[in-house]
């Protein structure tokens, strides 16, 4: 096989050399056309070598070898993923390299209940059962689930552990535990109506099929509104790391509610405190409430920590904004440490519980400064500075102040005279 391939390559090389000879004296256009059709030679105008077509490249594709953006463990220096047993805990998405609003499925953040094995589920063996306070319990195979009317929507998922502090270096560490995808599936309300929801239903428990059977209690109002029993992600089946063959999307709620490997939904009249809820436990009702729906949040991804501006001049400041309460209404950017706030533009239409890409055109004059963003969502919630939040709770703003609930405070980036960007909380 190998010798055959090698000899063919030699032949092609010879052919290219010959073609180069023949094109002497013909028009430049023809020479260019020839160059694209053949492997490169030192004299060719095409400076790039050919990507040799392989079965894998043809069948599923692969990014350029020059694109090296990867997920990393979260937090840096924390529990490694994979660990010695091949288990995965928390892994962050490289937001610093992101463009647009879709996180590539290969780069979507990962979190597991306790550091779990990824179950290798055969979709032909997997079923979803809905029972409890319904008139007719229902068991569906994955093929049957796909027969129901479907929806396709953009939604972010964000982990409760997505907290920024002064020790982190870049936006992957500070904000990489959020990702946004296009999800396809059946509205849970469609399935609950099919089962006939009883009037006494108040909560439902969504349970996974992985070894720890992770389960969360979710209000039935949410279930009847916009929860999706999702089997598709960015145009293909869910990835195993995202719950293949089926997960529940609970738009705007913290990541742990989005049960992966969904096997069972039990409709109940009461709150079941599962292990997941134990993890959420807080001393006060108020703080507990802030650990459910995610507040309005935004972050500048370019320029951001560890990046470097080559010199004074024009830059398009760019970032992501989202809210668990609805769609983002406005984003503002400050380039002078928060003295003046400027309206940013949207690069796509804001959607409910989805990332939106914002941008602000900026001419950097080469002086030291601080840049940051803040947003307001369409139900009037506003992203605030850490000091504003501490003031509201009437507590002193100490260096290690912990914003209650998922941390949605403003993230500042410092820009030094040499163009280097560092964490503004440091």
């Amino acid at each position, binding site marked *: 096989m190998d010798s055959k391939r090698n000899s063919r390559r030699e032949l092609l090389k010879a052919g290219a050399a010959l073609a180069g000879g023949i094109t002497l004296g013909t028009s430049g256009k023809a020479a260019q056309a020839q160059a694209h059709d053949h492997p490169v030679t030192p004299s060719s105008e095409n400076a790039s070598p050919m990507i040799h077509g392989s079965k894998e490249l043809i069948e599923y594709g692969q990014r350029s070898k020059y694109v090296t953006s990867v997920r990393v463990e979260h937090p840096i220096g924390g529990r490694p993923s994979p660990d010695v047993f091949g288990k995965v805990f928390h892994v962050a998405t490289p937001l610093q390299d992101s463009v647009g609003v879709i996180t590539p499925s290969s780069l979507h953040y990962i979190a597991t209940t306790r550091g779990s094995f990824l179950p290798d589920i055969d979709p032909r063996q997997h079923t979803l059962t809905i029972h409890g306070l319904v008139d007719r*319990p229902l068991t569906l195979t994955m093929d049957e689930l796909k027969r129901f009317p479907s929806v396709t929507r953009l939604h972010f998922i964000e982990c409760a552990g997505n907290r920024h502090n002064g020790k982190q270096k870049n936006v992957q560490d500070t904000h990489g535990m959020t990702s946004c995808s296009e999800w396809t599936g059946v509205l849970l309300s469609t399935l609950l109506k*099919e*089962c*006939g929801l009883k*009037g*006494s239903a108040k909560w439902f428990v969504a349970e996974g099929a992985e070894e720890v059977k992770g389960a969360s209690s979710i209000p039935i109002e949410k279930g009847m509104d916009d929860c999706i029993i999702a089997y598709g992600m960015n145009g293909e089946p869910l990835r195993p790391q995202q719950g293949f063959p089926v997960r529940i999307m609970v738009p705007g709620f913290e990541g742990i509610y989005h049960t992966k490997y969904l096997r069972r939904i039990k409709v109940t009249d009461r709150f079941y*405190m599962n292990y997941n809820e134990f993890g959420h436990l807080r001393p006060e009702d108020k703080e507990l409430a802030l650990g459910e729906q995610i507040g309005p949040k935004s972050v500048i991804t370019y320029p951001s920590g560890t990046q470097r501006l080559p010199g004074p001049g024009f830059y398009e400041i760019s970032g992501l904004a989202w809210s668990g309460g609805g769609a983002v209404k406005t984003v503002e950017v400050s380039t002078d440490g928060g003295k003046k706030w400027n309206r940013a533009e949207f690069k796509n239409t804001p959607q409910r519980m989805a990332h939106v890409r914002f941008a602000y055109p900026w001419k950097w004059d080469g002086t030291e400064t601080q840049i940051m963003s803040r947003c307001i969502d369409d139900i009037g919630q506003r992203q605030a500075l850490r000091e504003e939040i501490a003031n509201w709770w009437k507590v002193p703003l100490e260096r290690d102040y912990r914003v209650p609930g998922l941390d*949605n405070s403003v993230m500042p980036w410092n820009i030094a005279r040499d163009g280097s960007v560092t964490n503004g909380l440091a």
Partner: protein
Amino acid sequence: MGSLKVVTISLLLGLPGSLAFAQSPTYGVGRTPTAEELRRMDISIGPTGEELPPGRGTAKEGAQVYVQKGCVGCHGATGVGGLAPILQSTKGVDVPVWKKERILPLRAPHATIVWDFIRRGMPLGLEGTLTPDEVYSLTAYLLFLNKVIPEDLVLDKQSLPKVKMPIGDEFGKPHQFKLNAPRLEGYPY
């Protein structure tokens, strides 16, 4: 038409309201799980413990199961010193529970959660294989290690939900979720 008929008949028979509005399935896809399937699958245990299976266990028995089932390997001989999360507090008896470590058999508001998690999530690699007696025993052992219950208390379907946890009532309760509303009423952020 069909649902109208159901309403009429239900009213005539004096059936409860919720049933009167029951709709027939729209798509008719899928099947009805058997009672046995549901019984095997439904592992949810709520705070009242009404779903608990029969069985019993004490801390002494639990200490043996803890060794037999290899819990020691990950959690250490007495719930400390292993690679897995600690199971016994290292803080003094007088330290308030919220200042102690986040340990399930210590901070859980209901002992039923401890039972539920051991049942569904342990031991690593053999999840779901413990018998109800073993789960009652391990729960008793871990609660005893954290000085929540005496060593001789027999835990079963009746006594487990009655265990008084150190946290008492000092934990946040879930609020009434409202659609399209701020995450906390009156909170601007």
